[in-house]
């Protein structure tokens, strides 16, 4: 089953754009689509998921990461290194 990966971002968030770019590159060769969401449009859901800061990464309705996203963390989460660009 294809995973649903959501990235919750906020306006003026310092690390959100970078995290989105990193994720898109990381997921580009996988059968996974990244949904980026403005957290202010989904505050109730964000609270239910336990999000306290952005960027927040949610995989299949489970919060797996909050805050600045590193390649090392992406490796931990998705298990393989990013394809060379």
């Amino acid at each position: 089953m294809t995973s649903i990966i959501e990235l919750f971002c906020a306006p003026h968030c310092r690390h959100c754009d970078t995290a989105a770019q990193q994720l898109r590159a990381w997921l580009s060769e996988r059968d996974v689509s990244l949904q980026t969401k403005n957290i202010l449009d989904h505050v109730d859901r964000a609270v239910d998921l336990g999000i306290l800061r952005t960027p927040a990464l949610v995989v299949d309705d489970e919060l797996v990461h909050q805050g600045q996203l590193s390649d090392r963390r992406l490796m931990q989460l998705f298990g393989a290194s990013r394809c060379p660009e």
Partner: protein
Amino acid sequence: MPGISIGEAAERTGLTADTLRYYEKIALLPRIARDPGGRRRYDQRDLSRLRFIQRAQRCNFSLKEIGQLLQLRNTQEAVRPQVQRLTEHKLEEIKTQLADLTHLQAELELLLNLCRGSDQGCPIIEGLDQNA
């Protein structure tokens, strides 16, 4: 004579002496012990009961409801079924209020964190606007 005066009880609870006398008059408190001069002496049990009344009032219980709830505190025997039902109902209300407060707490923490992490603008204002 053990216990504390009505003035001390008022000071400890933040209630007025008139309120303490009123609670006794409407039987929210049992008859308070008197010293030989006829002055009220409040013991620990009375103070505990007053704190319960204050907590219940903060949860928007009426004095009548509080009186019924206090029966649970005072008797080891089975309380009347309607008192039990009232207590169960109030317990559910408190759980709902608690869930609402917990959600609100998390939402405010999130919005405050977003505000702190922002160089420009405050997402709290935007978030409140969108929830309105």
